[in-house]
């Protein structure tokens, strides 16, 4: 075994980060050299309100183990209320995902401001840990069985 390569399960998490707050916060985590797990693949969106519930479903159905949606704190949205729309969709989506049998920990909505690099790192850390203990989602294989 190659030293440093772990055989433990590493979750694949798709992160939809709003460009004004969360993406900038993630950038700050990097430039500040904060250590956090590399499990989130970030996708920059203009606003968390741009995240169609279908994006989340597609990510899960295509092999992601979790999805993180992160945007500006309520009240700080660059587009005034985009993130409030995200809460509305997210709450309903959460109910539906629960019906599908997707654990709550796998899909999270979080607020990260541009100055909260540390907060972003801790969110990714806790999410990775939770999903690692849940195990892989492997939606396609489970559905086709």
């Amino acid at each position, binding site marked *: 075994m190659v030293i440093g390569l772990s055989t433990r399960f590493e979750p694949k998490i798709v992160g939809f980060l709003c460009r004004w707050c969360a993406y900038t916060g993630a950038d700050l985590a990097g430039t500040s050299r904060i250590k956090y797990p590399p499990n989130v693949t970030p996708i920059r969106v203009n606003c968390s309100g741009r995240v169609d519930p279908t994006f989340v479903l597609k990510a899960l159905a295509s092999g992601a183990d979790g999805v993180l949606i992160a945007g500006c704190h309520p009240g700080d949205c660059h587009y005034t209320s985009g993130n409030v729309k995200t809460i509305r969709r997210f*709450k309903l989506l959460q109910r*539906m995902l629960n019906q599908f049998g997707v654990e709550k920990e796998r899909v999270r909505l979080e607020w990260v401001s541009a100055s909260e690099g540390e907060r972003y790192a801790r969110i990714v850390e806790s999410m990775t840990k939770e999903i690692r203990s849940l195990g892989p989602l492997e939606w396609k294989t489970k559905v086709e069985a």
Partner: protein
Amino acid sequence: MPKPKMAFNWASSCGGCEIAIFELGTKLVDVSKKVDIVFWPAIFDYKYSDLEAMPDKSIDVTFFNGAIQNSENEHMARLLREKSKLLVAFGACAHSGGIPALANTTTRDQIFTSSYKDTPTTDNPEKVLPQTRVQVKEGELTIPEFYNTVKTLDQTVDVDYYVPGCPPVGEQVSKVIDQFVAGDLPPKGSVLGASQKSLCHECKRTKTNRKISKIVRTFQTIPDPEKCMLEQGIICMGPATRGGCGAVCLDANMPCRGCYGPLPNVVDQGGKMLSALASIFDAESEEDIQKLADSVPDPIGTFYRFSLARSLMRRTKQ
């Protein structure tokens, strides 16, 4: 010119699609003048062996309704694909799973337990469950295998065209048949007998972009026949559903349930409807939003009533 040969088949469906063809009424006589119906188990006495005896690609067009829920459905889908030049997924079940695909929220075991053991009207003291093979003194009897997951026709075999609807409205069926007779066909994979826009475009109700603070169910109220259903708090699938039916349910003062399937270029009808509905929630605080979200009855059954098999998730976790 010889008349085109046409076949109809039903798989996992209710028979409503056959009724939709009967809805043509006396026009059906005209249809029979234009085409030769060579196979139609719901109406005529054909045996599967008659179909097996036909040469490959000898049927010009087959209208196949119903989802694929057991091995017989699948066998017929494969057989008709071999025998037909064109295969049309006819109706919501063949197109996107339809009502039978709601079985994807459960499993075969749960369905069997509920149907053959738990229902109060079931008299089954020995708890016998359906077996695909059983030995009796006359020999072996077989029945088709019941599948755990319902599939659409195009998840089973290659499909040329789709005609959505539960059932497709008569007027559209007649137009589609004429299209086939005339050979006037769009590219393979097109949805026929429906519009390219959402149902809201053909709905005559007044819309004022009002937000909703309460979900109302149809049994709790008599909807105002002039106003948009969604603005009255009644979940109407119109914004996420392909038009073409003429908004017949809305004319009967009932909300759209989504049987015409997703709009062009949309994969997941339910996800789109969830988004549309949540966007008009009149709530700002997390608690109020949660309350409204919690009051939506059965999200999967509401948003994917006719399209669960075709959706991104396809079924619940087993």
